[in-house]
């Protein structure tokens, strides 16, 4: 006995690879035949092209197709793919009055799998999967054929082997709606979210990790960016209750890392110039594999600590020395790095923690803030517990990050005892189903709204959503723009005039002030006559800032620019 039941055979031994246009021809032919002699057949349509950004990933296609093919094997029928990646199962007639099974049961299953959190796509008129009778739904199926793009080579084939390396998110160009950041899948640490059109080979990926891990500490400074987070009190009514800079988050910029790899590629492509140990093939960008990226992040984090130790007291943007009236530095470190001798040497530079409560009462009087991703904490619970104790004893704040709204719906980050929980903004948040919205609101209340930091707050929509949820801490381009707008109003040098070396400087713009605040080198601040104010974020305390929330919108930043 084979022990195998046809009812459970999911992987079809026959995997016809039809070109996209062939799918349209088959459906058109079936529609014509049905019009001539109705058989009562039905079509199960799976609109994978309608999945919200970043769109259908290879596993969506693979498993949706496997489920359709399984049904076709059991109950008869034929599966094909339309241009654009949508799938169709053409199934034989189903008896009227029978309970939903076979092809008729598939749409509900597929909807549940593909949209586990409900339909969050804007303007959802048609479900992601549905069964349509060929006769009754003739017009709609015709419309489906007419709507299909003329040809589509961008949709990955569902047979594409993607493991390893893993599924890289594939998003159609222009998938992000105007004014909104793309809804990125939040990876742990979330610093290497860049997409690759084609994942590089395993060897190239591992070599890329090795190349970046071998970066001299000094070169790392060129890959960094500072992002200042803002505190907006619950009753934000300037000038009585001011905007405050919370921390300066030091981030590694993936685009700059990728550029470094590209430069290494160019060097190795010169005849006889390949450094020992590097492959002849191109490195191919940052690794797509999440675990390789984590390994890379861990190596870079250790180097970052060394860099900050070397920059101690240097009065450069990378000086983490805590000073009264200045926001603390925030760095993302894995538990293993926090527990390393290198971090101990860095922590020893800080003064003993002050126990006095800070005036705002929203943050402990932190010497330094350290962000640990929840995934890293879960992977190394003992290391995380030790790191938490070490940070606490040193008067440093623990920020738990790498938490998307999906993660917040699944897990309870507050159980890990952080000082702050960093929730990544997503444009899907305002569109969640009511049940999910309530669950997110409950999670924010459970954590305590004052202990939630909304990261990736790049847009006004993010800020407004956060404010409505009771959140007071924001990090992202929009928060930076608010801080820059405040600086422009307070800064004596913002009107331009003679610089320190006698040259005439133009008046400062919102964008230039915001960009200078992100710079980690003196060169990045060229043109600013008040760098101390850049370090501060905003004068602390601020008493007279005549800004209102809707008045500040940052239009000037383009994706891929230095703000990316």
């Amino acid at each position, binding site marked *: 006995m*084979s*022990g*195998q*039941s046809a*009812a*459970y*055979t*999911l*992987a079809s031994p026959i995997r016809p690879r039809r070109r996209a246009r062939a799918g349209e021809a088959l459906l058109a032919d079936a529609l014509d035949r049905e019009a001539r002699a109705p058989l009562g057949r039905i079509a199960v349509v799976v609109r994978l092209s309608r999945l919200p950004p970043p769109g259908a*990933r290879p*596993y969506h296609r*693979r*498993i949706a197709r*496997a489920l359709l093919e399984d049904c076709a094997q059991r109950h008869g029928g034929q599966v094909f793919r339309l241009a654009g990646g949508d799938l169709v199962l053409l199934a034989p007639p189903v008896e009227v009055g029978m309970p939903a099974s076979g092809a008729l049961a598939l749409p509900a*299953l597929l909807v549940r*799998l*593909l949209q*586990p*959190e409900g339909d969050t796509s804007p303007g959802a008129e048609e479900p992601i999967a549905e069964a349509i009778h060929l006769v009754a739904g003739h017009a709609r199926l015709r419309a489906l054929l007419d709507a299909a793009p003329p040809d589509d080579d961008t949709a990955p084939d569902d047979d594409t*082997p*993607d*493991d*390893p390396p*893993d*599924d890289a998110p594939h998003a159609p160009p222009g998938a992000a709606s105007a004014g909104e950041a793309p809804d990125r*899948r939040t*990876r*742990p640490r979330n610093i290497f979210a860049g997409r690759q059109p084609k994942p590089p080979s*395993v060897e190239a*990926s*591992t*070599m890329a*990790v*090795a190349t970046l*891990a071998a970066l001299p500490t000094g070169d790392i400074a060129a890959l960094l960016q500072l992002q200042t987070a803002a505190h907006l009190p619950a009753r934000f009514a300037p000038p009585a209750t001011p905007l405050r800079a919370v921390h300066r988050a030091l981030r590694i910029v993936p685009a700059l890392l990728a550029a470094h790899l590209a430069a290494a590629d160019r060097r190795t492509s010169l005849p006889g110039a390949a450094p020992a*140990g590097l492959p002849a093939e191109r490195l191919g960008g940052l690794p797509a*594999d*999440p*675990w*390789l990226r*984590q*390994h890379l992040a861990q190596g870079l984090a250790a180097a970052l600590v060394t860099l900050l130790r070397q920059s101690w007291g240097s009065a450069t943007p990378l000086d983490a020395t805590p000073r009264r009236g200045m926001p603390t530095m925030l760095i993302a470190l894995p538990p*293993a790095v926090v527990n390393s001798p290198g971090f101990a040497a860095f922590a020893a530079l800080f003064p003993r923690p002050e126990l006095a409560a800070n005036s705002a009462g929203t943050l402990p009087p932190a010497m330094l803030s350290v962000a640990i991703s*929840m*995934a890293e*904490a*879960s*992977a190394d*619970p*003992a290391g*995380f*517990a030790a790191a938490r104790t070490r940070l606490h004893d040193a008067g440093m704040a623990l920020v738990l990050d*790498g938490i998307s709204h*999906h*993660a917040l719906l*699944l*897990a309870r980050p507050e*159980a*890990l005892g952080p000082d702050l929980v960093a929730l990544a903004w997503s444009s899907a948040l305002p569109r969640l189903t009511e049940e999910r919205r309530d*669950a997110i609101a409950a999670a924010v209340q459970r954590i305590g709204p004052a202990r939630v930091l909304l990261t990736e707050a790049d847009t006004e929509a993010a800020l407004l959503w956060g404010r409505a949820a009771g959140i007071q801490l924001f990090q992202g381009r929009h928060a930076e723009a608010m801080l820059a707008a405040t600086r422009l109003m307070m800064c004596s040098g913002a009107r331009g005039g003679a610089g320190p070396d006698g040259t005439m400087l133009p008046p400062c713009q919102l964008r230039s002030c915001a960009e200078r605040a992100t710079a980690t080198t003196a060169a990045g601040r060229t043109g600013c006559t008040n760098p101390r104010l850049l370090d501060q974020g905003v004068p602390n305390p601020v008493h007279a800032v005549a800004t209102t929330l809707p008045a500040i919108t940052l239009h000037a930043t383009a994706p891929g620019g230095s703000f990316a």
Partner: protein
Amino acid sequence: MTAVLLASRRPQSTRGSAASAEAARQLEALVHEAVSSGTARQALLLRLSTLPRALAQPHHLRLAVEALEPLTGADRARLFVLPNDDTIVVWRGPAAAALTDSLERLRTLFADARDSHSVGAITRHLGLPEEADILLAVIAASRQPPPPPRPATPRTPLDPPALAALEAALASADLSRFARRRPVCALTPGQGLKLAWEMRLFSLAELAETLAPDRDLRAAPWLHLRLTRMLDHRMMALLSAPQELNGAGAFGLALNIASILSPAFLRFDAALPARLRGHVVLALRPEDVLSDPPAFLFARGFAQTRGYRLLLAGITPATAGAFPPETTGIDHLELAWRPELATTTLAALGLTAPHTVLANIDSTAALDWARAQQIPLVTGTLVRPTR
């Protein structure tokens, strides 16, 4: 009793013999039986392997074993001589007089020894099942070959080029000899331990020792995780082979989420015998869930549609409250035993008994805690199903 007869006829050391290996196996089974059924027994352990060479002559060993004779008359007494000559008598019920008699004979035997070895140093009176872990450790130690010479240089952490080489080696290596099974048992009061499912896994420690002896895999945890992806595929391929699952019972697989969403899983699923559908547990890791929650949600829905149960492994007291089953939608949470758990309760950790599997059970204290907390499923070195 066979074991007693064996001992009384034994003129000299049986070090390493097939009979002593069988004695070790029988004693191990007896200890596991005591643990799973909770039956009280007593044992006298005689650590003859620790005697100095001058005192470990064959006639010394024979006399020492003969000194235990009073105890072998106790209720259901059995005597076991392990491969390293350590000797154990196990009995039920009171036998205080026999115990005193045996200890007195031993004292007399070693009274003339100039060495400082006292009888107290080589004997130990144990209670089962409470001190089962001590006996199991003695059995394990008795089987160990002499420790291999330590490598001259410390092992270096796994790095990406070494990982690439290791993956290449793994791709063609025959991994079937590294395949292992670890029982997960249902702990039902009064019924001992019943096999719930067997985890099918590769012994990564042995694999690394064979394929990359100079590398420390644990020192690079993310690269180690990356390696598990390839092992997932090899395991799924192994189990998809014809006949492989013939006669198999419920089993569990530790998989990456990406592996569940791969073509290899579809092949494995297609090859799964129908009678095992609904009896396979997929163990996931929390860092994998958090790395890509949308992929997890999709994989969860797909796996549960196909009848798989899901388990979240690697939960410790520090992370216990972070993954509530009602929001993760996971069937089982595998909590790793730590001695500090003895002073707390499941409820204090934010966990509920019906969903919990207590893992890493290596002591009776762990098993007692599982019983006290009414944890339904247990696994670890001390956990063997009751025969």
